[in-house]
């Protein structure tokens, strides 16, 4: 199961909506072994494409080094599909190489409703897992501050 703070969940959706119709991608880092996503890192899609994404290789090196220095790992690796369902494609599966990561897929094909699903992809095998959205702030310790801005609502054109 993926447990993710509401604020991070909303940031992923916001990023996916902003880059639509191109695919958006990024990482949420967390302490190694914690299985807890805490630090949101939106990445550039070097392909700027509605059907493909690739982390910019230089940006990836910098981000991966930073995680290394902080004793973090990519807990969530997310990207969006903008015209199809939020299910890993054959390309997604062939590239998946972080067995400890939650691969989050977001679909923005519907203007008003965003599909948000999570998978494990290990040795080419895809297993969907439940997503639990936590009201706690990332990392789960301090309570969600009352003066936090209200949750971002995905704008609906309906």
């Amino acid at each position, binding site marked *: 199961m993926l447990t993710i703070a509401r604020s991070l969940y909303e940031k992923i959706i916001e990023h996916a909506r902003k880059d639509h119709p191109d*695919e958006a991608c990024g990482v949420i880092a967390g302490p190694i072994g914690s299985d807890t996503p805490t630090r949101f890192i939106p990445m550039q899609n070097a392909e700027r494409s509605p059907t493909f994404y690739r982390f910019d*290789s230089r940006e990836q*090196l910098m981000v991966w080094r930073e995680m290394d220095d902080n004793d973090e790992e990519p807990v969530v690796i997310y990207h969006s599909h903008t015209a199809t369902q939020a299910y890993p494609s054959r390309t997604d599966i062939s590239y*998946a190489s972080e067995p400890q990561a939650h691969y989050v897929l977001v679909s923005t094909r519907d203007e008003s409703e965003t599909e948000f699903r999570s998978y494990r992809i290990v040795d080419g095998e895809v297993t969907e897992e439940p997503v639990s959205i936590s009201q706690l702030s990332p990392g789960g310790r301090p309570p969600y501050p009352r003066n936090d801005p209200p949750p971002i609502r995905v704008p609906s054109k309906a």
Partner: protein
Amino acid sequence: MAIEVRIPTILRSYTGGAKAVEGAGTTLDELLNNLDAAHGGLRERLVDGEKLRRFVNVYLNDEDVRFLGGLETPVKDGDTVTVLPAVAGGAR
């Protein structure tokens, strides 16, 4: 002195769990052959025939070797080579 090669989690089964190993050579190609002698199978995961696999990024110091000379990129003692899995995919 030698060339330090940083290995991602997914490939550490080839290095006995080590995060970094050392090798020698004057080009990336030579370096990978040199590493393969001590860590059999590692080269095959990075190279397909004469080219780097598209599933991996290989950096010389801070630069993606695809923008340098690929496998022919010159390397020297004191350099750091970093291997990362490429993160890519998409609906296509």
